[in-house]
């Protein structure tokens, strides 16, 4: 993990900004990509959202107050961008968010950038049945292996509530996989 404070100072100074931004992108691109991909499911959409996330980070870095960690702030932007993206996509397609999820999951089966087997596809279907917040908590805890304290900073939810959410999500996924 790079020293956030140093990077932040470099990002705020014109002469070091470009180089620092490159460092920032290279450090966080994979983590943020996978976080976004798990929400939007499709690679092209994940790429769009990831680029927009970094562009927002770049343009708003001077407003970053440092109340939370830099990467928590970026995760928060990535999460909001992903959810807004899905919301506007469902509006453009004129379908509900549930119908959009179904379409995305169906597309996953023929997606060249999805090589999951039957059980992995089933897992994605199980995750799709979760309410939005539980879905985020499950992905961040299970796949990103983030600590509850870190998730708490990103989602601005108490650790206790996150634990309950994760527990419920795991149980629902387990029973979905068992029943289907």
């Amino acid at each position, binding site marked *: 993990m790079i020293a956030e404070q140093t990077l932040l100072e470099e990002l705020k100074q014109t002469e070091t900004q*470009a180089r620092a931004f*490159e460092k920032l*992108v*290279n450090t966080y*691109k*994979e983590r943020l*990509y*996978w976080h976004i*991909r*798990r929400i939007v499911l499709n*690679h092209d959409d994940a*790429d769009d959202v*990831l*680029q927009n996330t*970094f*562009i927002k980070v*770049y343009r708003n870095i001077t407003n970053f107050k440092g109340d939370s960690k830099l990467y928590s702030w970026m995760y928060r932007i990535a999460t909001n961008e992903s959810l807004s993206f899905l919301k506007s996509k469902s509006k453009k397609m004129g379908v509900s968010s549930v119908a959009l999820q179904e379409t995305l999951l169906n597309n996953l089966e023929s997606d060249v*950038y*999805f*090589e*999951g*087997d039957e*059980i*992995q*596809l089933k*897992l*994605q279907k199980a995750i799709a049945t979760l*309410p939005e*917040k*539980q879905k985020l*908590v499950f992905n961040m805890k*299970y*796949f990103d292996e983030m600590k509850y304290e870190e998730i708490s900073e990103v989602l601005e*939810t*108490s650790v*206790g*509530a*996150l*634990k*309950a*959410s*994760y*527990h*419920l999500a*795991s149980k629902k*996924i*387990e029973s979905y*996989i*068992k029943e289907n």
Partner: protein
Amino acid sequence: MKAPNKNSGFRLPEDYLENFNDSLLNKIATSEESKIPNKEGFTVPKDYFDTLHKNISDKLEEKPTKVIAIQSYKKYYYSAIAAAIVLLFVGINLNKTVDYSIEDIANADIDSYIEYTDLNFSSYEIAEVVPIDNLDITDILDAGINEENIIDYLEDELDSFNEFNLDSYDY
């Protein structure tokens, strides 16, 4: 582990006790999560991450181009503003302008404005202007809510209600 074995005749595999903790923890981990696969199957195009920074930088550089394009239309904007001011004065002087009220705006336009504009109102601010006391649940929902739906909702949205998450909830 060379402790004498009182259960004469029984033997242990070599290093069994030394490795017991690790194998137990592994077993717990796999038995707890075995129903959920830990791989997802998502992949990315070749070299995607290598070219990402360049793609973002290219997008960031697109902005100045747009600014230059807008500059060249400046004179048209000034003309448009001037024309608008003239029309406004003519309209006022002739006293033929219609007084628009909220009723003149189509509901669809209001809906779309609220939906697509980041109004940044907090729940409290909205609550201050919405006459909650005069509202009935049927004003918002066509169908009634049954108890089962409420229980399902609470179960799904448990994390939104901190008071439900007691300290003893330690998983």
